[in-house]
């Protein structure tokens, strides 16, 4: 018994290496990625106001995480504002729209509304990309990953930088 424990402890200890970073919470990384992704997208000048509005349709926990992460932040000298969509909202008045994984029913409706408008739509499912969403953030192999539907981005009049496209898993 003790031999086995020791063996496991030794094996795990000897062969692993210390990671550069500790493990990070998925919600925090996703929120940070949302804010960072916006730096690599060009919006048509006409679509910009003095504030950068991110609308979010997601669960309570992630919405709060995003609001906290965005607090006091600026994107290209514009103050970032996070707005939670309520059930009756059919439009977002935003530059960026995040749709959480559990919002699959509203997702179709929101995407229909955002189609061909200069709104960077970010979701979590493959269905989201198929239905015209632009960016997908998802978890695989304990890492956050990215997919981009550049065709939808072009339709929306958004220009995504090659640095971001290179990070994406599959790009058209």
């Amino acid at each position, binding site marked *: 018994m003790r031999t086995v424990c*020791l063996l496991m402890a030794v094996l795990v*200890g000897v062969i692993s290496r210390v990671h550069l*970073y500790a*493990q990070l919470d998925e919600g925090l990384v996703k929120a940070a990625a949302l804010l960072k*992704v916006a730096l690599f997208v060009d919006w048509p000048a006409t679509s910009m106001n003095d504030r950068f509005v991110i609308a979010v349709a997601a669960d309570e926990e992630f919405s709060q995480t995003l609001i906290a992460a965005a607090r006091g932040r600026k994107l290209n000298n514009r103050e970032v504002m996070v707005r939670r969509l309520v059930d009756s909202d059919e439009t977002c008045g935003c530059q960026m729209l995040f749709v959480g994984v559990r919002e699959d029913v509203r997702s179709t409706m929101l995407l229909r509304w955002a189609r061909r408008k200069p709104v960077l739509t970010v979701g979590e499912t493959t269905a989201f990309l198929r239905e015209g969403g632009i960016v997908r953030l998802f978890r695989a192999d304990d890492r*956050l*990953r990215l997919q981009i539907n550049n065709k939808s981005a072009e339709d929306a009049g958004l220009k995504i930088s090659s640095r971001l496209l290179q990070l994406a898993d599959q790009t058209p």
Partner: protein
Amino acid sequence: MIAAFVPCSAHAQPSPPDPTTLDIEQLFDVELTSTASKFSQEVTHAPASVTVVTAEQIRQHGYRTLADILGGVRGFYTTYDRNYTYVGVRGFARPGDYNTRVLLLVDGHRLNEPIYDMAPIGTDFPIDVALIERVEVIRGPGSSLYGTSAFFAVVNVLTKTGSSAPGPRVDASVGSQATRRATVSVGRVFANGNEVLVAGSGYDSAGNSRLYFPEFDAPGIGDGIAINADGDRSASMQAQAVVGRVRFSGALIDRAKRIPTASFLTVFGDGRERTEDTRAYADVAYAGPFGQKWTGVARGGIDYYGYSGAYPFDYGADGIVISNDSSHSVQLSGELTLNRRVDRHVVTLGTEVRRAMHNHQRAWDVFATQLDTENPSTVLGVYAQDEITLRPGLLFNAGLRLDHHDAFGSSLTPRAGLVLLPRRQSAIKLLYGRAFRAPNSYELYYYGTMQEYGFTLAPETIETTEVVWEEYVGAHLRAAVSVFSYEADHLISQRMLVAPGLLGGGIYFANDSSSTARGADAEIEGGWSNGLSAAAGYSYVRARDGATHAVLSNSPRHLAHVRVSSPIKPLASRLGLELRGVGERRSLDGGLVPGFVVGNATATTSLSKKLDLELGVYNVLDTGYADPGAEEHAQRAIRQDGRTARVRIIARF
């Protein structure tokens, strides 16, 4: 056990960086904490007691088979007779039942085949567990939606897709008993969102090279030791593609097992007793809108099942003769389910048809063919369900299914549930349901006694009532409690007719027993943001024969489990520990098979971003324990393996 790791985990840890300070490349490179810190399930509105086992949990605890997964589910336990693995649910694991009373689905496709109704959960399960995304276990009767076999529970295995297992990967392990397994998979997501995944696996194990069975340790029989007679091997493939709203999937497995137990009165130590099972299916399913107002799923599939068995019998003067069994079936199936929300109602309507075009059983030896029977069958089912929101926080769910089987007529199965959601974080469910299981071809046609005496069989039925309470306590704990009562009637059981010269030794099946089970189970699970997760569960059940009131065989009154999985951050590793306890069980001869506690330990570590290493030690306490034998065994209990280990490596490219 844990103490051995405390010095490691006590190392000073750097405080985690604020992710917003990382640059974009780093954000997509940092390792995320386990999702186990989030709950694997929310308070469910489903009118049932549900447990979800996630891919994360499967990996953290080094589960090797679906049986390993199910054995850790509250109220479930498994029995291994060194041929197949059987699942018991809430006190019911009838000896000789080939998992006929649990419906097993893979991505919604039925795996129980039409000859034996068997749900394969051991090394005969066609999907490698590493490619399972989650397993949903729905306790209680499910016949009102699924028809036959959804008797004690429905187990739905959801597999990974091209996006959840992207790129090529190799998953290989070696372990005790000369066990080797390798799986190669390739997943891909295309620019248009379509996905494919293809995988192939090989498994080979010598099994326990030296098994001692005291029943065969007697003068004139032998020393009771079965040497090198426990080999197990399988080869499998799976593939799936998601194209728009259509999903194509298929799987294939061939599994051969040598049987060391001399079951069915075969010759002990002969070495030739074996079974081989082949399963294959292809399925195409569309999920999406049907017209303006309905959504739903349309599915079509084809299944192949083949079995062959070799059984060496001592024919006296003629010497040892191999008796062969074989069977195969080809089944076509189609199903349509439609959903619509109308005001306060969510209505589900559905229909299902299954046609076993070939349904063939054969038994022969060098002297004669004892059985050669072809029994095609057709099952047609229609069902409806309505979920009504009576007022906010109060749902009523009612469902009804009618099945028509061409061999014995119709079965009607209702289900009703009242789901009360007093607060956001709690649910109380009052449930009632009926389920049935149709007699299968093996029970109806295999034994000549059935035809000679004109015995027929009707479906067996179960009626259940259950109260479920689920509660989230604070941000990190979830608790669930169930109290249930099961009444099973007309259970099909194996009987022996004592008359000389009967084919098949006079074995036949009859709808002649009833059983009741009353019990309760509870579980508490916790997940914390530092990646620590833990769960503890306990179930108590009294399952009795309806006529004699004797406790059923292979029915433990107590089941318990404890699981802990903790990151060991400085080492980029994780340690999973698990204890499973099964109370004493009665054997068929009325004796007692002692209860036991088995512990498993799994350490996983990331050698690099693309390489994971895992060490698993199973039955780490080297507990000596046994599972009860069935009617076909001379053994009243079959001893299980002691401590074994495996080393596994997962490489992603």
